[in-house]
């Protein structure tokens, strides 16, 4: 059967299960857009290609399927770059299709020619330059397989315009042949035995739950492991939702803005069980004093993560769910009453400092707002965020019971991620309630996608935490630069009017007694709704591990009695 390269692309993409594509047309991908009209895919026209990459990413994170983004050559492709880097850092499976100039023009600085495979080489799991139509079927099959298997990640295919137009014989490759790509599955038995020995000896164990649990679908087996061995579970930022927040063994989030009792448990542990996490500097503090008394078992599918930041005692390289399923029947049951009691004491001390226990002061605190949102939605919404203070408060106070409902740019820390990823998540789950909690700074980076939200009728609720500051940078300047504020005070537009200009209902909320009603209004109104909250301008996220400090050297919020005295 003869087909054009562009038709072959869609034949293959549809077979990969793609139903939604996020993109932007241009000169170098017009044949692809023309052929698309004959295929059963829903195309979401974005307002900036960065939005397309974040939407594909949000779609992937919320659904577990591969997200797909498209852009034309040159600036279209380079606009994807921030989104691709974000997906790379957070191991999110997306496939990006970019148009490229004619193969015979490559290297000649043709109009809108950019070396896209060169630019994206270090920020993709793999990428391809396709110069002939007969390569497309094989490349697309490989790209989707690579994106979703092993440690997932972004794959980019740059397709020359002539390859889109050429007519060749089409046959769908039934299997992918990649001799150099064999993601591991089981871990060696000898290594499992070593791990069992460490688990048997442990008195103060902690599970470090990472996003690998979600990627591998290991939520249930992780819970079985924790219960059987009576091991408390601390989560990374992206691991939130991997273990139920309400579970008695949950320690909540670890790291720079993690729960104090979670960080104290890690620092005092005698065994760390790292499940699909990578010892990022934001969760370890300085490595010199990290968990000094702990042996470490590290389970990860990516061998290059082993010993990368922290030297581990027993590496188990394999698929997390497979490894834990192998390990579980070999395990005895354990009990650590003294350890659990110690952690309980740390937790009680932390609760006394929690801002949730502070009296109402007539002002809007982001933590209180997130708590109100959590109560109103029964903790069941899909929540996306931007990056900064609001992100940390949302991580701290939107308690997640279920996986794949927390979408946040962790590794890359990409501002502007919140709104587009929420639109992507909604397109993956039309029936779910989707909220994006954003700051005034990050929201303005991708607010053009409001128009996309309207165009798609996306039922996405936007909560802007407006403090007229780039809050996290302001906090650092307050703590570490003697409060010399430099370029952090930000006048903002009237967000409600911006919403109205898009035909989006909006509400401005300035006092605590309006909060519940505003959230109820947003939930009851179909389609996108924007709430702007004028929050306390200068408030700090606590606890905080300063950069370069040990994980248990946290700046803490003063306890209430003390604060009232001062």
């Amino acid at each position: 059967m003869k087909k054009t390269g562009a038709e072959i692309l869609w034949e293959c993409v549809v077979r990969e299960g793609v139903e939604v594509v996020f993109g932007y047309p241009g000169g170098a991908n017009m044949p692809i857009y023309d052929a698309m009209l004959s295929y059963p895919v829903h195309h979401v026209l974005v307002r900036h290609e960065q939005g397309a990459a974040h939407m594909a990413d949000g779609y992937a994170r919320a659904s577990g399927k591969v997200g797909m983004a498209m852009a034309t050559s040159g600036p279209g492709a380079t606009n994807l770059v921030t989104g691709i880097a974000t997906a790379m850092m957070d191991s999110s499976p997306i496939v990006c299709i970019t148009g490229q100039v004619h193969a015979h023009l490559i290297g000649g600085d043709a109009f809108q020619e950019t070396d896209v495979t060169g630019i994206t080489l270090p920020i993709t799991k793999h990428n391809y330059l396709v110069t002939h139509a007969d390569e497309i079927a094989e490349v697309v099959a490989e790209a989707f397989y690579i994106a979703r298997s092993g440690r997932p990640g972004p794959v980019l295919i740059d397709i020359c315009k002539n390859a889109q137009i050429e007519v060749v014989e089409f046959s769908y490759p039934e299997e992918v042949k990649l001799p150099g790509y064999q993601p591991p599955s089981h871990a060696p038995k000898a290594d499992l035995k070593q791990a069992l020995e460490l688990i048997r000896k442990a008195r103060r164990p902690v599970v470090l739950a990472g996003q690998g649990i979600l990627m591998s679908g290991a939520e249930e087996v992780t819970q079985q492991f924790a219960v059987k061995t009576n091991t408390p579970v601390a989560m990374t930022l992206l691991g939130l939702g991997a273990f139920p927040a309400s579970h008695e063994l949950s320690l909540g989030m670890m790291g720079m803005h993690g729960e104090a009792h979670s960080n104290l448990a890690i620092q005092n542990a005698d065994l760390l069980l790292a499940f699909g996490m990578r010892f990022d500097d934001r969760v370890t503090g300085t490595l010199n004093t990290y968990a000094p008394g702990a042996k470490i078992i590290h389970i990860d599918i990516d061998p290059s993560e082993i010993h990368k930041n922290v030297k581990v005692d027993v590496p188990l390289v394999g698929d997390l769910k497979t490894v834990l399923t192998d390990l579980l029947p070999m395990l005895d049951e354990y009990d650590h009453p003294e350890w659990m009691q110690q952690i309980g004491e740390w937790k009680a001390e932390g609760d006394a400092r929690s801002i949730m226990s502070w009296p109402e002061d007539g002002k809007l605190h982001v933590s209180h707002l997130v708590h109100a949102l959590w109560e109103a939605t029964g903790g069941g919404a899909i929540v996306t965020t931007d990056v900064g203070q609001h992100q940390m408060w949302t991580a701290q106070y939107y308690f997640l019971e279920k996986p794949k409902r927390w979408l946040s740019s962790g590794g890359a820390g990409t501002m502007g991620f919140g709104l587009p990823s929420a639109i992507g998540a909604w397109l993956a789950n039309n029936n779910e309630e989707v909220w994006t909690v954003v700051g005034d700074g990050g929201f303005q980076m991708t607010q053009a996608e409001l128009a996309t939200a309207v165009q798609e009728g996306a039922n996405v609720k936007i909560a802007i935490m407006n403090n007229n500051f780039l809050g996290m940078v302001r906090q650092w300047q307050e703590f570490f630069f003697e409060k010399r504020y430099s370029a952090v005070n930000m006048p903002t537009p009237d967000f409600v009017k911006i919403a109205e200009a898009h035909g989006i209902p909006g509400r401005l909320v300035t006092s605590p007694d309006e909060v519940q009603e505003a959230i109820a209004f947003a939930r009851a109104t179909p389609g996108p709704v924007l709430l702007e909250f004028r929050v306390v301008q200068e408030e700090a996220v606590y606890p905080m591990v300063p950069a370069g400090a040990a994980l248990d050297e946290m700046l803490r919020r003063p306890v209430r009695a003390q604060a009232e005295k001062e």
Partner: protein
Amino acid sequence: MQYTLIALVEDKPGVLNRVASLFRRRNFNIESLAVGRTEKTGVSRMTIVTNCENDIDAHKIEANLYKLVNVIDVQDVTRQPSVTRDLALIKVKATPEQRSEINNLAAIFRARIVDVAPDSVIVEATGTEDKIEGMVELLRPIGIMEMVRTGQVAMTRGEHSGIRRNPGANGNGWHPEEYASAGAD
């Protein structure tokens, strides 16, 4: 310490760039890199010499190489019985009277003169890095005008093979019987 790694890679455009980019991106240091065809069509072989503090750093390089989709196999031959060779072409300033002196020096190192010009000769030397360094030191006082070296290539002796620290590499380091259940999916 110097580590010598052998990587088998798919012979496709851009693979050398991927390997070089990886070394730059991860801040690994390449002492030398030699690439060429192998006995199998479509497969190229790289010999990479790199400076690492210890085996853990060598593991990091191997693991990152292995992550590249086009890299089929990675072995560490540093401590394995192996033959390593470097080839050098050295153009030495030589009057007709000096030629015999250079010829004698070359003979000691089993090198040979492959080109003679009125005021220079080209010496071709093959051997371990040490041997070539030794010869270069002796030729330097005479006057080296130009030098080119291929970088090391390496091959293990007999049935020896390099150490593979990563699972799945070419199916070689992957011994299913050692794993919890055979027939990994």
